[in-house]
């Protein structure tokens, strides 16, 4: 009897803890909606999402976040273009090719990069990379789309690499051995057997890396250049959504239009990350390997 009672108490405690955290999250979402939606009293949804001008403090103000959305998306895209190939190649090297000793040296270094505070990376981009781009590439301004993407790629490489390495690692040895037994080379085995078997894990890794890039605030604030316009080249300054929120929230009059516009940007950002998560879920289910190679 006593044991059963104990069991029950433990069960209920965990249930309560779970629901508390879910409730807290729901509360944050509710707050986001209740603070963000009032902006649509003064602008329409279309003006807000597709307006080309962001002049929140003018009289009358313009709340068009299209340049900010484009900035966030282009930064995310460019940084994944840089990070994904590098990170996946690193993961393949670590899981398939490198000797255990090599792994012991390289893995802690990658984890070290992952633990670098974003403000340090932002600082590096500002002090080192920006002047470098100006001096050696003749770019007029070092704080730009390219610089910020490079820094974000640097941040998302460890995430993508570690998770894809886990995915590659969990491909059963039997599959590899079967492939070798059929006369395939190591390269063929990696490309035609190991990668397809772990594709859902790798995609999850990529999307998680992208969510990290789209939500990153400090680096975007320090290195992106902050011009609220649609970039015409990769050396134009941009203003991603999180940077705009972080830079302006402190000075926006409480419960004013600008304040709720910033919350509405937060909502848009939230929706983007939500879509990313749905994609992960979808791919993880669709490409799930069945049988021996289940991840």
């Amino acid at each position: 009897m006593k044991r059963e009672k104990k069991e029950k108490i433990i069960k209920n405690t965990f249930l309560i803890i779970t629901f508390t955290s879910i409730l807290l999250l729901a509360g944050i979402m509710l707050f986001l909606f209740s603070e963000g939606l009032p902006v649509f009293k003064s602008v329409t949804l279309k003006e807000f999402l597709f307006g080309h001008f962001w002049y929140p403090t003018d009289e009358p103000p313009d709340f068009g976040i299209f340049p900010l959305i484009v900035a966030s998306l282009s930064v995310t895209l460019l940084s994944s273009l840089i990070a994904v190939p590098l990170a996946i190649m690193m993961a393949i090297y670590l899981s398939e090719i490198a000797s255990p000793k090599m792994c012991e040296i390289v893995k802690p270094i990658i984890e070290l990069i992952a633990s670098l505070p974003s403000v340090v990376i932002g600082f590096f981009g500002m002090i080192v990379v920006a002047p470098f781009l100006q001096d050696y590439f003749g770019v007029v301004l070092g704080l730009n789309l390219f610089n910020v993407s490079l820094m974000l790629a640097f941040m998302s490489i460890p995430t993508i690499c570690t998770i894809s390495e886990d995915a590659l690692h969990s491909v059963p040895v039997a599959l590899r051995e079967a492939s070798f037994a059929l006369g395939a080379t190591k390269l063929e085995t990696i490309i035609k057997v190991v990668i397809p078997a772990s594709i859902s894990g790798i995609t999850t890794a990529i999307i998680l890396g992208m969510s990290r890039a789209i939500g990153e605030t400090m680096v975007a604030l320090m290195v992106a250049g902050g011009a609220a316009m649609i970039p015409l080249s990769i050396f134009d300054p941009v203003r991603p959504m999180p940077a705009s929120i972080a830079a302006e929230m402190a000075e926006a009059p409480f419960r004013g239009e600008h304040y709720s516009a910033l919350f509405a940007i937060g909502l848009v950002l939230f929706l983007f990350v939500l879509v990313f998560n749905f994609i992960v879920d979808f791919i993880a289910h669709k490409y799930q390997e069945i049988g021996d190679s289940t991840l």
Partner: protein
Amino acid sequence: MKKSLYFLVSIFFICFCPLSSFAKQIVIKGSTTVLPIAQSVAEAYMKENPNISISISGGGSGNGIKAILDGSTDIANASRFIKAKEIKLAMGKGVYPVPFAVAYDCIIPVVHPTNSVQNLTLNQLKDIYKGKITNWKEVGGANKKIVVVSRDTASGTYEVWAKKVMQKERIHPRTTVLASNGSIVQLISKNKNAIGYVGIGYLNKSLKPLKVNNIKGSLETTLDGTFPISRPLFMFTNGWPKGETKKFITYILRPDKGQKVVKKEGFVPLY
């Protein structure tokens, strides 16, 4: 068991001591521009009055005034005057914010030290930020594209720039926007073709200040009103200040005490 009891007792004391023995506490919040002034004046003040603790945080003028409205601070720093919307909110809550000008800030256009341009008129500055002038040769400099750098539209520094220089015209969207005076200093000192603007306290050797309408920005030209881009900095209190808050405000306004610190911090004192 005994150990944990001691621990609990000491925690209890740490929590409740400030309420009893250090009851005299002043809370200051608001503008990051006024923050260095508030911080060093508070340090000097606490040295003279050791039984008072002053807690200071930034967060911006808007947040400071918000804190005055909801009563979570005694003094709100602001680099701008209170807005009509905020006054309306205050009246609704029965709060009467009282402004005290504590210093002047002077905002100076700056370029890289190698730039040959010495002086710009207010109109030229406006045209540069509007995107009408895009090359340094149009204002007497080298044949180079101008990299225009501005502050966040929400910052107090930008507000002054918008009012005094832009005069209701809009800054071109292509303009680079940075989040602090410090990062502007950083960028201008590293970029030969850039122009930006910073508070007078942030001038250093890596920047070249420009004259505006042939007037050099300095303490003198700010106080006699000839330098066109300057503004007063405020501290707001809820109603006419009383008790410790009043003593602190008086201290900061005294020419031999607070105002000396203001000057040392690179701002323009009132007298």
